[in-house]
């Protein structure tokens, strides 16, 4: 299997990439690690005439701290994110999600920007980005805009990225100390994709009640989402097993669960209830530690 014919362009800067995007328009696709796009091209599900490789733009590979936020370049690989000492120290949830993606070979190639823009419903990063309330920077000719993770994922493999835009950076406020977090998933045994994945971030007040709680789910519906009903059921309540189980039972409420050869909608909904419960319990345990 091999892709159809195309021209390969290696962008040397963000401006260069945007110029190429403008020049080739709908005939072009941006290439990150290629671990979603190349398989699609081999199956001829995608046949772009031009590929614009953005992975050699130095600016897009950097991870740093600025204005009180951790900023991750779009071309940072999952392996880089998972092993970055800065990300591990200040955005542990994101490092955990990155380490859970695929296998080591996939993590060595796949990029955070590529994964987010591909918006596979079973991808790991979207749940972490939603729980962390990440901000996603999109550059276009002559400027840029920032989109909140909550506004980024629109539908199945559909995001807020507009023609002519390039995802350049993902930034998140550092997770404060005393906060518990966890990303847990039920991986598909062959592909490693999340049948369902759950991300949780919690803080407890001095009485052991939930002060903040953010929960996001991937793999269940056509796009990752914040489990608002679960969060509401926990707010201000005691962080005990019964409360968490009752709240997690709402994980699939109102979601049109995906059904495919791998899992029925009912099974996915049950996985969501189980993994949301486990993720919250793990986050609570860490918050107490």
């Amino acid at each position: 299997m091999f892709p159809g014919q195309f021209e390969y362009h290696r962008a040397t800067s963000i401006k260069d990439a945007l110029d190429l995007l403008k020049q080739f328009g709908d005939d072009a696709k941006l290439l990150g690690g290629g671990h979603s796009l190349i398989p699609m091209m081999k199956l001829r599900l995608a046949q772009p005439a031009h590929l614009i490789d953005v992975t050699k733009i130095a600016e897009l590979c950097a991870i740093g701290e600025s204005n009180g936020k951790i900023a991750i370049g779009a071309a940072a690989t999952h392996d880089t994110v998972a092993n970055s000492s800065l990300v591990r120290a200040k955005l542990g949830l994101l490092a955990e999600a990155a380490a859970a993606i695929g296998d080591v070979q996939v993590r060595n190639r796949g990029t955070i920007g590529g994964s987010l823009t591909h918006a596979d419903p079973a991808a790991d990063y979207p749940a972490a980005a939603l729980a962390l309330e990440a901000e996603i920077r999109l550059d276009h000719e002559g400027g840029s805009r920032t989109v909140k993770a909550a506004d980024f994922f629109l539908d199945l493999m559909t995001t807020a990225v507009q023609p002519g835009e390039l995802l350049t950076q993902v930034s998140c406020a550092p997770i404060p100390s005393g906060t518990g977090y966890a990303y847990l998933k039920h991986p598909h045994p062959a592909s490693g994709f999340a049948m369902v994945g759950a991300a949780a971030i919690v803080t407890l007040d001095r009485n052991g009640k939930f002060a903040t709680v953010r929960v996001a789910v991937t793999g269940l519906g056509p796009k990752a989402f914040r489990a608002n009903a679960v969060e509401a059921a926990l707010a201000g309540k005691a962080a005990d097993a019964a409360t968490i189980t009752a709240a997690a039972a709402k994980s699939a409420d109102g979601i049109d669960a995906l059904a495919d050869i791998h899992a029925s909608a009912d099974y996915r909904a049950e996985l969501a209830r189980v993994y949301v419960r486990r993720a919250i319990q793990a986050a609570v345990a860490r918050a107490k530690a």
Partner: protein
Amino acid sequence: MRVNLTINGHPRGDEIEPRLLLVHYLRDVAGLTGTHVGCETTLCGACTVLLDGKAVKSCTVLAAQADGASVTTVEGLAKDGGLHPIQEGFWEEHGLQCGYCTPGMMMAAVDLLSRTTNPSEDEIRHALEGNLCRCTGYQHIIKAVQYAAEKMRAAAGR
């Protein structure tokens, strides 16, 4: 288009089609058939090589993306007529039967051993999740990696 890269320490350049996959470049252009084509869908790991020192599935990398990079294939492991410790491990611990997955397994193991010198059994299994073997049941492959780790630690005086 033209690509220039280093394969097993030897620089080379070739005119290629942009759609040429790295695995086909290595096998059909560079003549290095030790890297195997398995599932072609990024799952089995038979085509694993090191790209700038990191294990990648070369069926899902364009040769064009490797322009300027350093590639190590299984042919690049043995040095000065002596087997690499991972090759020796597979030999000594019977880490293969048919051998189809073996080059990819070894390259993934080399990536692991570049990150950690004393991996636990769990760490080895985790690091080889992207490589499938249909013969051995993995047990002897784990032992082969443990053998190599020990040998490399001894050689480094640790």
